């Protein structure tokens, strides 16, 4: 199947969104190295076209679930960089008021229902959310992201099984970045083509490369449309690659320099940039976008640094309902 021709304005918007994620994470990595961000930090660098293409295929009313590698989708969905950065810094102004950190972003306004750190643990919740939409007669779609490592765990199977049985309006997107932490797919899965799994749940399956945002958007839109029109769930395997380690503490020595350099030839942001130039967009326009993003991210870091730390009373007061503010 050929790559669809991009619309210039769409691609410009998508380029901006991808670049915003890239710069955000590069800045996060710098601040992690400086010790300003603690704990774990899993970067999405290299995979941006998937989040951005997928979000472009959704409506604002639709629901999104993601794993712990969640900065990209949150930003693509429109989360302010300030709220995202402040969360990484453990501040009260963060998107989860500093209760979650990098792996546990939330944005109730944008129907982003969370980054999830238990592999496969969020998938049944996404199915339940899709069930709710059917129960209430709403035409809202749920999209659930996970890595290829998740496809071996029980939570994956039970969520897929129920979603298939109940023909839920959900799209399961497997971001196959080739490595479950340090172990490559060929050592963890009997199947090489994971999209075959869709058959086992009577779902439509799809599989494609994820570095071209236009293609991602197009194929996701087909699946989202299928869900919205009652034609049932889809399981999509998107082939991708993370340019950094599993997390900041992973030097990724399990893969070769050559392999990484090869994959970087397919950097989704570079691909989009070249496409835009081909479409006649001035390089200076793209540079201006990059500068605007740099300013936004710089302001986000300043905001995060100056914000108050997460509040003890929120920490102790939100375990049960009667203690909280809702």
């Amino acid at each position, binding site marked *: 199947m050929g790559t669809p021709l991009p619309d210039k304005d769409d691609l410009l918007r998508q380029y901006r969104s991808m670049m915003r994620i890239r710069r955000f994470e590069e800045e996060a990595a710098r601040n992690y190295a400086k010790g300003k961000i603690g704990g774990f930090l899993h970067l999405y660098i290299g995979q941006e076209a998937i989040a951005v293409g997928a979000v472009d295929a959704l409506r604002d009313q639709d629901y999104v679930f993601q794993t712990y590698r969640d900065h990209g989708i949150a930003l693509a969905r429109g989360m302010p960089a300030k709220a995202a950065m402040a969360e990484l810094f453990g501040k009260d102004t963060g998107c989860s008021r500093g209760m979650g950190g990098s792996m*546990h972003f*939330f944005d109730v306004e944008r129907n982003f229902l969370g980054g999830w750190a*238990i592999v496969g643990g969020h998938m049944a*919740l996404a199915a339940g959310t899709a*069930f709710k939409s059917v129960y209430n007669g709403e035409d809202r779609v749920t999209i659930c992201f996970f890595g290829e490592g998740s496809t071996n765990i029980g939570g994956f199977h039970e969520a897929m099984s129920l979603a298939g049985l109940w023909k839920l309006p959900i799209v399961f997107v497997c971001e196959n970045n080739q490595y479950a932490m340090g172990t490559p797919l060929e050592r963890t899965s009997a199947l090489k083509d994971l999209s075959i799994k869709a058959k086992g749940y009577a779902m439509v399956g799809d599989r494609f490369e994820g570095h071209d945002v236009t293609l991602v958007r197009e194929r996701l839109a087909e699946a989202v449309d299928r869900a919205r029109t009652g034609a049932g769930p889809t399981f999509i395997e998107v082939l991708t690659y993370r340019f950094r380690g599993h997390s900041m503490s992973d030097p990724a020595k399990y893969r070769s320099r050559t392999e990484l350099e090869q994959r970087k030839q397919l950097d989704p942001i570079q691909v989009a940039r070249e496409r835009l130039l081909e479409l006649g967009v001035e390089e200076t326009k793209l540079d201006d976008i990059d500068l605007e993003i740099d300013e936004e991210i710089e302001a986000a870091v300043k905001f995060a640094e100056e914000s108050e730390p997460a509040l003890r009373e929120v920490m102790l007061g939100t375990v049960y309902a009667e203690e909280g503010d809702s």
Partner: protein
Amino acid sequence: MPEMNLVQAINSGLRGAMRENDDVLVLGEDVGRLGGVFRVTQGLQEEFGADRVIDTPLSESGIIGTAIGMALHGMRPVSEIQFADFIYPGFDQLVSEAAKYRYRTAGEFQVPLVVRTPYGGGIRGGQYHSQSPEALFIHTSGLKVVCPSNPYDAKGLLIEAIRDDDPVIFFEPKRVYRAVKMEVPEEPYVVPLSEAKIVRAGEQVTCVAWGAMLYEAFSAAEEVAKQGIDVEVIDLRTLWPLDVETIVSSVKKTGRLVVVHEAPQTCGFGGELVALVTERAFLYLEAPPCRVTGWDTPFPQTHEQEYLPLAHRIIPAVIETARY
């Protein structure tokens, strides 16, 4: 007022909750057409339809996980796990997801989920149809744990659990299901969570129990009364959040504590109760607090009557505590 057993009272509670709120639905294995393995949900699918009383595959993680997903959006799902022993495949969903959602969203989301499950021994179910895993859930901040002993409390506590905004694990004593009948109102009513009940007032020993073992504690108390030992029996009803005040003020009066539970002793809830009482009423204690519990073994197939902390095991413990 009609007389109901525990099964009928819970059924009546579910029916009432579903009639008053369309957001309440029931899902689990065999809950629909069959009416549940213990027939607790009998007739609900006829009244509310297969979309609200949902027969699921054998899929405990999926049953609980999808229910959490529904609850996030204001629905009030009641999941049935056919036996408490089968809850472990869904344990991660309860401990990792349901219990923590409110906290990690700083209160933005809540999970008004109820998981009903029959627990406990006494039906010769052996290792995997008899266990009492309440302590695992009490140990998990963010979950509430309820365990009624009788039909009236069961209906009122269940309706309150469904209305509650937090996830509640609702343990039903299966050996009591058809063993006890009492007057239960037809209409919905609530029994508040976190209120223990003194079911027998006494001056000399405080005996704390819940669920099926409440009856054993009560009959032990009646038996030792013949020897002049006056036992106060407390039915916890809700295990967490705990009505610690009722226990502590009773012990301050009696100076003596016996806790009874079916689960194994080590790290069972009895240990926590003893610690709480020791911390808060140390100077009032006249005897070492005592636990009468299941053994630290898997639940036995054949020696059930010895494994369970029945009256014949509670009586000597109470006498020893009273005479210490």
